C-alpha cells in the first residue's frame, strides 16, 4: 500500500494537501536545476582527473591532503543528511514546530561546522604551497571542492531564512515547499561529497 511518488524527495502527502499539490511543479523545477548542477560537478570531476599529474613541480595530493579532516568532514555531512531527513519526517508527521526546529538547528550546526573544517583545510592547503595559481592540479582542486563548499554555505543561508520564515509566518505552504526543496539540495550535496571524498581525498591518498 504505497502511494505513488509525485516528485523526488519526501512527499508531504494527504495530511498537507495544499503544500503537497504545490510541491509537484515546484519540486520538478528544482529537480531540473539539481540535475544541471550534477552535470557541472560531473565535468569538474572529469577536469580534476585530467589534471592529476599536472603538478608543475608543486605539491601533490599526498603532500596536501589530510585524511583526518576529510574523515571528520565526511561524518559531519553524512550525519547532517540524516538529521535533515529527520526534520523532513517531523515536518510531515508531527503537528508542532518544536521537533522540526530542533532537527533543523542540528542540521544547520553540522553544516556550519563542515564549512569551518573545510575553510581550515583550504588555509592549510594554501600554506603548504598548493594555492590555485601553483599548478593545473591545484586549480582543478580549487575549482571543484570549494564550489561544493559554496553550495553548502548557500544551503545553510537558505536554511536560516526558512527557520526565520517559519518562526514569523508559521508553517504555511510556502515554508513547507521550501523545506522540501532545501531537502533535495541538502541530500544532493551529500551525494556530490561522496564523489569528492572518494575521488579527491581517498583516491589521492591511496
Amino acid at each position: 500500500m504505497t502511494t505513488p511518488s509525485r516528485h523526488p524527495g519526501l512527499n508531504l502527502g494527504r495530511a498537507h494537501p495544499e503544500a503537497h499539490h504545490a510541491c509537484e511543479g515546484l519540486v520538478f523545477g528544482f529537480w531540473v536545476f539539481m540535475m544541471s548542477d550534477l552535470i557541472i560537478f560531473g565535468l569538474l570531476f572529469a577536469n580534476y582527473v585530467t589534471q592529476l599529474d599536472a603538478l608543475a613541480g608543486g605539491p601533490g595530493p599526498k603532500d596536501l591532503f589530510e585524511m583526518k579532516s576529510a574523515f571528520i568532514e565526511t561524518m559531519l555531512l553524512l550525519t547532517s543528511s540524516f538529521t535533515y531527513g529527520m526534520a523532513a519526517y517531523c515536518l510531515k508527521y508531527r503537528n508542532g514546530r518544536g521537533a522540526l526546529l530542533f532537527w533543523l538547528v542540528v542540521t544547520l550546526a553540522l553544516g556550519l561546522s563542515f564549512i569551518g573544517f573545510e575553510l581550515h583545510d583550504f588555509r592549510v592547503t594554501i600554506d603548504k604551497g598548493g594555492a590555485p595559481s601553483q599548478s593545473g592540479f591545484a586549480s582543478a582542486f580549487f575549482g571543484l571542492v570549494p564550489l561544493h563548499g559554496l553550495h553548502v554555505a548557500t544551503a545553510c543561508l537558505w536554511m536560516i531564512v526558512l527557520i526565520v520564515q517559519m518562526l514569523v509566518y508559521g508553517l504555511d505552504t510556502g515554508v513547507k515547499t521550501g523545506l522540501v526543496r532545501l531537502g533535495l539540495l541538502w541530500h544532493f550535496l551529500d551525494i556530490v561529497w561522496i564523489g569528492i571524498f572518494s575521488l579527491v581525498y581517498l583516491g589521492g591518498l591511496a
Partner: protein
Amino acid sequence: MSETQRQSGVVDDKERRRELGSYLWGYGLALALTLPPFALVAWSDWPRVTLLWAIGLCALVQVVVHFRFFLHISLARQKREDLHLILFSTLILILMAGGTLWIIFNLYGRMAPAMLP
C-alpha cells in the same frame, strides 16, 4: 478519494514507519559504505589499484543508497518525467565527462606521455 480517506489512518501509519525506516536504513548503510574505504586507505597495505577499485565500488553503491533512501527515488514508484530527467542527465554526463576523459587522455598518450597516470 473517500474510500482512501477511510483507510488513510492505517496507510499513513504504514507510510510513516516506512519513511522513518528509510532514513535509518539509509544512514546505517551509508556509514557501512563510508567507514571501510577510510579504514582501508588508513591501515591496509593493499596494492593501489585494488584500493582504488574498492573505493570506487563503495562510492557507487553509496550514491545509489542515497538516491534510494534519502531522496526516495526508486525505479518502480517514480513519475515518468522525473525518471526521464534523471536518465537524460546521466546520459549527458556520460557523454560529456566520458568524452572529456577520452579525448584528453588520448592527447596525453600522443603528445605528453608524462601526464598519464
